[in-house]
């Protein structure tokens, strides 16, 4: 039956592919797909997968320092989930990489050389328990907004991975909210800890959704991801959704947002805000963020130290 597909001209295959995704069908790993679709998915999903793994690092720093046993168990469970999400997503990326004969080890090497990027927020410091809470509340909150937007993605394996991931993200967000709520209702020192975290993370949270267009940093994949029905909203629409869901919650706890211009314009039904420094996104993409090199080194050392385990478990040549 595959002969039928092989006999078709490229443009016919493309037409059939576009018709399938327009009809809401899911594309599977072994199906024919245009090269730019595969390339976009590889870039998106390998970055997402490796970001889950790198994202566990700022939180793992707080496992030994969590204030109670219950909080320690909670944050350990979250760190374990993030590594699990990384495993799922790397599998999806690896299947897409097969025609290029690239495997997991290649992805790790790409991370170490800087060819494979990880999300800007995971290059930042996590200086206090307030930061640990804020990561769960607002960083995971931002991630939930961007990930739920892709739950209906045209690529089946990614959509299925996201369904599993988003279900667990709900726990992550509530875990973060619980830490923030306890601090917000605590002593003056504890309350200040949260305000300091909001002030430190706000710009990174705006950068997280990516530039509104390719003018800010020179490139943007958002048009192609929307064209191929991988997601439905633009970077700016996702950032606006984040404001709509979280600004009132931050203010309701008596905190301020470090942007005096931030307001909702009723006429245009959009949030007006101070643009972040988009240049910082470029610095981070070069792995020159506040903690980029420390986190990469942690991963390099761990990958090297565990090499003997991978080798010992590799199947013997018969």
């Amino acid at each position, binding site marked *: *039956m595959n002969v039928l597909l092989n006999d078709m001209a490229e443009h016919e295959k493309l037409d059939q592919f576009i018709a399938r995704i327009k009809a809401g069908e899911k594309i599977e790993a*072994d199906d024919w797909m245009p090269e730019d679709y595969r390339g976009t998915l590889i870039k998106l999903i390998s970055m997402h997968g490796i970001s889950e793994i790198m994202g566990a690092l700022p939180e793992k720093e707080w496992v030994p320092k969590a204030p109670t046993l219950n909080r320690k168990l909670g944050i350990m469970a979250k760190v374990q989930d993030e590594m699990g999400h990384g*495993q799922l997503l790397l*599998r999806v990326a690896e299947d897409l990489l097969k025609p290029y004969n690239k495997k*997991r080890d290649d992805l790790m090497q790409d991370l170490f050389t800087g060819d494979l990027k990880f999300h800007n927020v995971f290059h930042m410091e996590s200086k206090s328990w307030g930061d640990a809470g804020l990561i769960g509340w607002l960083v995971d909150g931002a991630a939930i907004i961007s990930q739920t937007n892709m739950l209906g993605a045209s690529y089946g394996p990614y959509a299925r991975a996201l369904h*599993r991931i988003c279900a667990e993200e709900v726990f992550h967000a509530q875990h973060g909210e619980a830490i923030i709520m306890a601090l917000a209702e605590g002593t003056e020192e504890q309350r200040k800890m949260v305000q300091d975290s909001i002030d430190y993370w706000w710009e990174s949270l705006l950068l997280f959704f990516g530039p509104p267009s390719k003018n800010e940093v020179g490139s943007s994949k958002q048009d192609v991801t929307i064209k191929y029905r991988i997601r439905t909203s633009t970077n700016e629409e996702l950032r606006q959704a984040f404001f709509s869901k979280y600004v009132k919650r931050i203010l309701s706890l008596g905190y301020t947002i470090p942007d005096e211009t931030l307001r909702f314009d009723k006429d245009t039904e959009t949030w007006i805000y101070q643009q972040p420094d988009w240049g910082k996104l470029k610095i981070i993409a070069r792995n020159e963020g506040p903690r980029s090199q420390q986190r990469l080194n942690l991963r390099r050392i761990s990958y090297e130290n565990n090499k003997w385990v991978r080798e010992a*478990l590799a*199947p013997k040549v018969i």
Partner: protein
Amino acid sequence: METRQETYFEEFEVFSRKTQTSPVQYHFSLLAPNEDIAIMMAQENFMRREAVDDIWVVKRQNIRKMTVEEKKTLQRIDNKDYRTTKGYGYLKKKWRKYEQEMLDEKEIMSWAGGVKNGE
């Protein structure tokens, strides 16, 4: 000295059953060096919260999936009422005429624990 494959671990597909009577459900794939480690990783990766009664791992190379072309044969035409209870729904009205309840799916499946005798 024994030599080992340079290739990375093998691909396994993971399935599980929630209870002894539930259908087996597909989860996702994982990389593992052998079946025993695949089972352990499946438990860690996919069963951290949900109830589970059994886990299956299958090497991906042993699974034959359908191609896009073959999947087209799966489309159904909605003209097969005679295969389902939907095509026999009118019996409910008929039985009512004879002052009897229809033995529908819900009623029949409720006999699992035994039927209470009665007139």
